[in-house]
């Protein structure tokens, strides 16, 4: 269940966005793609999700080449920046969506789906919201629903596109830990896209610092701070050197 990103390149009308990106994500690992806006991190995530396709390079997951595979076949759960909830469906229906869309033998019975949804909502501690509609939820609750919906398809990998950027600072801090806990409980690898250094440092096992379509350094937070590989990394993480010693409160 290891994801290999091999030499992925992508450009929009001669404007390179990703330049031979290499990345390996181990099972159960939580990694962050960290970089300023325009560094290509969201494009990389969307290519991994199958919502965009690379010009060259390949993607391997669990020893299977999925470079050309459609998003719907990849079984990667994704949480979008604005959560992309289905506004015309209740929270329970949002969560059940992925299971209902399955075809033939793989599709659970109605009763089975209802049971699975109940369990998922319980695990995410949002059972009380089951019958609400997205427009009746707070930002933090919406994020919860989006995450639960992504987990409902029993994803093999979890992709998080700036899942905290729509929330205010206070809510954000509390949710970081609970998201990380949820990911640990489910036991799948996750990729977090963020431009927030603190968030990456606090949540990720390893961080890929991105700049101009390249990964400048891919390492643990401690190593990034102690031995920055390039001036950009040192510069981008400046001011966070005390962070590790003082602790983030996890």
């Amino acid at each position: 269940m290891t994801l290999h990103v091999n030499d992925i390149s992508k450009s929009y009308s001669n404007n390179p966005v990703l330049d031979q990106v290499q990345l390996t994500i181990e099972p159960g690992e939580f990694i962050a793609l960290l970089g300023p806006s325009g560094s290509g991190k969201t494009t990389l995530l969307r290519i991994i999700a199958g919502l965009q396709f690379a010009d060259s390079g390949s993607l391997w997951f669990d020893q299977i080449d999925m470079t050309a595979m459609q998003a719907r076949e990849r079984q990667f759960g994704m949480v979008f920046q604005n959560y992309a909830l289905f506004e015309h469906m209740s929270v329970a229906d949002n969560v059940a969506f992925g299971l209902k869309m399955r075809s033939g033998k793989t599709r659970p019975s109605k009763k089975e789906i209802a049971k699975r949804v109940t369990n998922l909502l319980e695990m995410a501690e949002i059972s009380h919201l089951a019958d609400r509609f997205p427009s009746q939820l707070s930002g933090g609750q919406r994020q919860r629903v989006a995450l639960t919906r992504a987990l409902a398809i029993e994803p093999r990998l979890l992709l998080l596109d700036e899942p905290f950027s729509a929330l205010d600072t206070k809510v954000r801090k509390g949710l970081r830990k609970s998201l990380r806990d949820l990911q640990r409980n489910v036991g799948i690898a996750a990729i977090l896209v963020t431009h927030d250094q603190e968030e990456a440092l606090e949540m990720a096992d390893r961080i890929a610092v991105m700049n101009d379509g390249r990964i400048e350094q891919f390492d643990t937070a401690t190593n990034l701070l102690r031995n920055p590989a390039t001036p950009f990394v040192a510069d981008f993480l400046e001011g966070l050197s005390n962070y590790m010693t003082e602790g983030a409160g996890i």
Partner: protein
Amino acid sequence: MKKAPRHILPGFGLTLGISLFFVSLIILLPLSGLFWQMGQLGLSDYWRILSSERTLAAFHITLSAAAMATLFNASFGLLLAWVLVRYNFRGKRILDALIDLPFALPTAVAGIALVALYDKNGWMGTLLAQADLKVAYTWWGIALAMTFTSVPFGVRTVQPVMESLDLDAEEAAQTLGAKDFQIFRTIVFPQLWPSFITGASLAFARSLGEFGAVIFIAGNMPFKTEIASLLIMIRLEEYDYPAASAIAGSLLLLALLVLILANFAQMRASRHLKKGA
């Protein structure tokens, strides 16, 4: 002294007053004339006029042809809106502009053009005759003329809603394993549904009252190809104002009923959708 209620936005009284004045002058006054005429009739007279075989036949023809035109325009409008919103191609702007043409064209011109095309000597007419099909001077001709004049409703109501759809939701559905058709059925269409109902009901209401485009191609045979609005005209020419107003009033109430029902359906469907954004 009583304090006048305060509004943040100024000009409420003035703008509402002017609006109501014009609504009364342009819409309500003529309609009240119609209902005043209708009021002259006793209930039994009204019933006698409406239940005459000729009137019933005219209503049957009008309603069925309008339903056909609506069915066609609702589905075709959806398709056309989809093409215009989701794809980029050469001539898209021209196609987009063409859609409003049936509104801009005098309906009589449209009717004459359709006859010229579908008459047995016409271009389409000869083609269809070879397949033993006849459109001009039949029920199909009526449906065709109604379809022509109400095309814009089907497209223009759905198009802006489709433009404002959030593509992220469709991408999310993809990552959750949905196939293209499932995404359309479960994500896209439910969001378009309220505007779809509006478009269909407007097209239907418009088709019910369409006159100019239809009479040229209908043939206007009583019991066969005579539409309700033509029957109104005939009764007027016979100076039978009560009969004309009875038919006209019924037609109007029917159209009103459709619009009200559509409004309810639309409110129900959109109660959970967020406004705007």
